[in-house]
């Protein structure tokens, strides 16, 4: 078990490193000179003076080779310092500290909703295979999955305002305020098809197993058969979807925070993109990637707890 976790960790570290290097190189070679960018974004009266630019570059250490600068950045990031914003000059850390909790709270709650509701609906659909209930659940999930959140979000607002004369749910007032309800539902329901599909397939696979038939034959009540014998093997394929789920939720939160006026990482991303604020964009990409990779790591680690056979098979495949 310990060896398994260790082997996962050993794979995780170079992945994060390669990702960082790629994105840093992209910005470094692609976007060009940060000093020039600062000048271009400064208010109009600042003249672009090559000599002055050279002096600033010298002072900031920006004429050193790429790898040296990357090493520097890496060292700072490892110590938790993402540098300063090109636009406002504020430290990126403080911007992220303000925004991250909002996205994390909503995102995590959304993921919990999807997982619980999705497993329940998926199991119900599987138990009623090809009946009306199954078709309704699967069709509903597919339609919601098909409509992008930046379409469904505004449409819900339109319906709420025009149809029910409700106020627009806009802004952030803590996780437990009613303002969060609509964005939470949109974020949580959209990727539910991922979970429902896996849970349903898992149930169909398990239903024909001998031990389920035995349990039924022994006269164990149906509910108990479902909870004890069917649910547990269903959890493994569902957990394997969590990486995808996290990516979907992060992508969706970038798209939807603008719609509902949530001051989270998504909105920070949007403003940073519009003003080409690279230190901020770099930091957000990093944080998002680390979140996704860490959740993949947790999924990998949780496999042997859910199903020791699956873990044994995975390690075997690699060797």
């Amino acid at each position, binding site marked *: 078990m310990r060896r398994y976790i260790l082997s996962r960790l050993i794979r995780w570290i170079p992945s994060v490193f390669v990702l960082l290097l790629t994105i840093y190189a*992209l910005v470094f070679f692609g976007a060009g000179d940060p000093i020039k960018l600062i000048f271009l974004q400064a208010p109009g009266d600042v003249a672009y003076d090559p000599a002055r630019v050279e002096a600033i570059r010298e002072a900031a250490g920006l004429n050193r080779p790429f790898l040296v600068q990357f090493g520097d950045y890496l060292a700072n990031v490892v110590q938790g310092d993402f540098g300063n914003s090109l636009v406002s000059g504020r430290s990126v850390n403080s911007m992220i500290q303000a925004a991250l909790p909002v996205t994390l709270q909503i995102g995590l709650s959304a993921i919990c909703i999807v997982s619980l509701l999705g497993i329940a609906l998926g199991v119900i659909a599987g138990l009623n295979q090809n009946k009306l209930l199954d078709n309704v659940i699967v069709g509903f999930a597919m339609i919601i999955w098909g409509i992008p959140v930046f379409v469904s979000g505004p449409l819900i607002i339109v319906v709420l305002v025009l149809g029910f004369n409700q106020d627009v749910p806009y802004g952030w007032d803590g996780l437990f305020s009613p303002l969060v309800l609509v964005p939470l539902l949109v974020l949580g329901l959209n990727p539910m098809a991922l979970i429902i599909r896996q849970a349903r397939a898992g149930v169909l696979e398990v239903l024909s197993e001998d031990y389920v038939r035995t349990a039924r034959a022994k006269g164990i009540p149906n509910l108990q058969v479902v909870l004890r014998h069917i649910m547990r093997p269903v959890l493994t394929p569902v957990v394997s979807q969590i990486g995808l789920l996290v990516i979907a939720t992060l992508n969706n939160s970038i798209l939807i925070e603008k719609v509902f006026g949530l001051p989270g990482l998504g909105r920070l991303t949007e403003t940073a993109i519009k003003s080409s604020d690279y230190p901020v964009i770099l930091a957000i990409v990093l944080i998002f990637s680390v979140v996704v990779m860490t959740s993949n790591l947790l999924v990998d680690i949780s496999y042997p707890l859910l199903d020791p056979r699956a873990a044994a098979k995975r390690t075997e495949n690699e060797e």
Partner: protein
Amino acid sequence: MTELAIQGPQEDRQISLVQDAFARLAANKLAVLGMILVAVLFIIAAFGPWLTPYDFLDQDLMARNQPPSWNHWFGTDDLGRDILSRVIYGARTAVVVAFSTVFFSLIIGLFIGSIGGYFGGKVDAFVVWLIDITMSVPSLLVVIVINVSLKPSMVNWMDAKFMETGNEFYRNTIWVDFILVFGSMALIKWPKAARIIRGQIMSVRNKNYVLAAEALGVSTPNIIRRYVIPNSIGPVIVYISAALGEAMVLESSFSFLGVGVRPPIPSWGNMISDGLRVWQLYPHVLAAPAAALAVVTIAFSFLGDGLNDALNPRQWK
């Protein structure tokens, strides 16, 4: 007579792979609906310029923000442009971007996936690692970073080229948008294709019928054509259908954020983002592109599911 009787069923069997799959697809009503909608989308995209009642850039400032009418079926936007025409041109944008993205990600995926599947061992382990990393990247953000960071240098390069050569081709930077959009999307989307192709190569390569054909001396191109492709094409077709839908959503997501295909070139994403500013007063500006995008993505997911059931019958067990 006897010869005919024998030949009949044999001929049937020759086309049975396609026929069989098509029969199963036709039995699935949702998949047929999806297929029809997707076909309509392709026709609209292909014949767009002949179908639009107005030019997508024509501004009629006397008829701004008009609700739907017989002159303007979907109304007009804040510059008096006909929304129906813009939605149709948005379909062109979506289809062009989706096809190029899927095409390039298939090429990258075919290259990397077949290297992994063919060589195996350490090469394969590296390929799998590369696939894993790329898949665990937050796709939307990375596409955005590529677009935002490379765009200025590419535009500068085009400008410099124009100054140098005076060639009109370098003056039109819309192509930069398109190339960056599907280039960056292909760079993020290839792992799924690579994973499918690698898996198919590995599973088909050691199947008994391939080994038997090899032993019988069938030539390699013939083995690939007769045995490998028919037995591995199913998941690839399903992938293409799903990926086309995903690419359209991704494209409109980031033109929604103001990256990617930029106004005045219509994309459903930037039309939705325009509509968001005025929906309280003119909900039709938002409704038309949003409905188009929703219908198309749902159509692709119905079609994809139907194809999956039709082409991978072994999944049923």
